[in-house]
């Protein structure tokens, strides 16, 4: 047992902090801080700066741009990125399809796709969920039928995040409807969004934003060399993809930054003769959220420090669950701090209300998704009770 960072890791942290707080444009970081929606161009600018510095895909294999960092270094990298309000490299590229292609793709596929995926010259989106398959992903109905050297794809995907910006989609499709188990008949295809027959319909969320979409496939013809790996093994690739991230599961840097911001906000909102932060009940709530965060972040660190490339520490199973709960708790608290100033969501130049307060309610509402998407909290609890505790329901 040993507390603290080695001198090398301390040095690494300084470098990361220096980079994220100076190389990424302030305007982008200000938007992130205030919870304002980023444009496509914002994402691209930030991603490409990181790419040029070799910091967009550090966890990839070294030959495709990876860094061979330890889990602890990866934690430091993510922590500093989030603390500096830097938007992460596009997850669909860096954390999802990239590692899948690097692990399961043919050499040709790697050479064709990995460089533009790393550089964001291709913007990827995800085609997994369908209207009738939520947590039960394996029940998906979109079909792909081989016709010569092309698959013909028909069906519908939904909850496709930032699909409106995407160049390509990686989609799970059913290639063998007769397979004994649902999971065995699924493949993963790479499909350009401008292919004939692909249409996209925006879904507006309750925060008023447009972040997710439906994607329809109507007789879309996809060359067979855009099949990832082997046919009917898509379920394995999807599981690899969803379970790939061990360190970044709980955005503790993000929460830490939001919680530090919450203190500033509480010090900025007048109350009586002073400010909200002077209220012992408010201050005690901040202290409690800090304790909650510390327990979570220490668990992230414990899991990162204890993992030796092999089986992850079982405590890693709590990170998504607890991370989403705490994100939501902090955003709820920020909306409470904003109070009546949160009642108008409109950013107006002449408003006497700060942007964070205008954004507080839509951001709070938006992050109700955190406990639903990417494996709902109910699914996370099931994973713990079945996989860790051995309670076979």
């Amino acid at each position: 047992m040993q507390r603290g960072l080695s001198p090398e890791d301390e040095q690494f942290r300084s470098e990361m902090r220096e980079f994220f707080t100076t190389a990424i444009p302030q305007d982008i970081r200000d938007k992130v801080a205030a919870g304002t929606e980023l444009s496509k161009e914002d994402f691209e600018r930030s991603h490409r700066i990181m790419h040029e510095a070799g910091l967009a895909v550090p966890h990839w294999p070294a030959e495709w741009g990876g860094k061979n960092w330890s889990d602890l270094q990866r934690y430091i990298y993510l922590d500093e990125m989030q603390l500096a309000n830097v938007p992460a490299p596009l997850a669909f590229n860096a954390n999802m399809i990239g590692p899948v292609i690097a692990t399961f793709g043919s050499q040709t596929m790697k050479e064709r796709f990995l460089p533009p995926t790393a550089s964001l010259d291709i913007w990827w989106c995800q085609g997994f969920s369908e209207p009738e398959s939520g947590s039960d992903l394996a029940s998906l109905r979109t079909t792909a039928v081989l016709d010569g050297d092309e698959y013909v794809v028909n069906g519908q995907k939904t909850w496709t995040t930032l699909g409106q910006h995407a160049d390509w989609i990686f989609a799970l499709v059913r290639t063998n409807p007769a397979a004994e188990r649902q999971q065995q008949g699924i493949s993963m295809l790479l499909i350009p969004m401008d292919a004939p027959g692909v249409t996209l319909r925006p879904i507006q969320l309750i925060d008023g934003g447009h972040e997710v979409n439906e994607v329809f496939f109507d007789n879309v013809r996809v060359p067979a060399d855009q099949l990832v790996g082997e046919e009917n093994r898509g379920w394995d690739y999807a599981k690899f993809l969803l379970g790939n991230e061990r360190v970044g599961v709980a955005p503790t840097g993000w929460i830490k930054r939001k919680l530090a911001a919450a203190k500033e906000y509480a010090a900025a909102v007048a109350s009586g003769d002073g400010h909200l932060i002077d209220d012992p009940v408010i201050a005690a709530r901040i202290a409690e959220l800090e304790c909650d965060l510390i327990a979570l972040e220490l668990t992230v660190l414990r899991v990162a420090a204890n993992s030796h490339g092999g089986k992850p520490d079982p405590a890693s199973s709590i990170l998504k669950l607890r991370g989403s709960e705490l994100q939501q708790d902090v955003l709820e608290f920020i909306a409470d701090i904003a109070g009546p100033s949160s009642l108008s969501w409109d950013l107006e130049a002449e408003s006497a209300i700060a942007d964070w307060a205008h954004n507080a309610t839509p951001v709070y509402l938006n992050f109700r998704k955190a406990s639903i998407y990417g494996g709902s909290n109910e699914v996370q609890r099931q994973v713990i009770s079945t996989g860790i505790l051995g309670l076979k329901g």
Partner: protein
Amino acid sequence: MNFEFTEDQIALRDAAREAISRHRTEPVPGTAPHDGELWKALAELGGLGLPFPEEAGGMGAGPVEAMVVALELGRAGVRTAYSETLTAAAMLGDDELFGAAVEGSRVVVPALFEPMRAWSPTPVDVRADGDALTGVREPVPYAAAAPAVVTTAATADGVGIFAIDNPTFTGARLDLAGVSARRVDGDEVLVQRAINLGTLLLSAEALGAMESALHLTVEYLKSRKQFGVPLMKFQTLTQRAADMYTSLELARSAVYYLAMTLAIRPDDAIGVSRTKVIVGKSGRHIGQEAIQLHGGIGMTAEYAVGHHTARLTEIEHTYGDTRYHLSRLARGVSEYGGLDLVS
């Protein structure tokens, strides 16, 4: 003690429900638009004047009847200036705007929020020197509908109430410097009474929203399948729906009781704070769980349930949140021993 609606109240509820459903439009995220047609229908129903005496131009009913209408608005998921207009009217005394407000010929709203200041029922940075006001009110509700406004300001002798017929807004911001304002009869007591009424109506609207959020959730659990079986086969979901029902019924008791209380004690600020706490806790619980039990669909603007959650959040942050009211109550807990709810 009687918590049941009278026949007249049931008739009013049915009429309000019918009028609202006839004019209902789909909810939208963000700032609520004003809907002139629906407003007219509510006014024709007499809904805007319910709690005010007939001799003043009201309907001579009471807070219970106004609660009945607000409950229907909340249940339908329709956002209107209902609570705002009745709060404003309650501050207007015999000012000429009162008639316009309760007839629905003008939208009249209270401007009681100060930007970047926690809720305070009394003005802090808004001041009056005679009829000359200084300070800023933001956000003013329904500012886009160019409403008339009733506001408060700190005066030499306490708190003054001011009517502003045609204010100019920048977004939802109203800079009071130089506006033409008219002092209205009344003081802090009248302001608190109006806020009490407004809080009751918001609480009733929240109760309606909770009712619908639970109803939608139950229907969803009954109809939606996952892993080949209806969601209602998952005990972890149904047990949570049961807890939502518990929160709903606790809030219902509190809201009904507050309406009865204000009918005889319109200045009962303690009762208002307690109700706001109960409704705030129930509303947060039900609003959050309703989305969670729906899953992704609950996040979409096309579906009703998330709008109920948004409205519950808005109500939580209006006229003091749970924490504010708990602190207000906390300052008094040493002054009495046990509770007595029936006297």
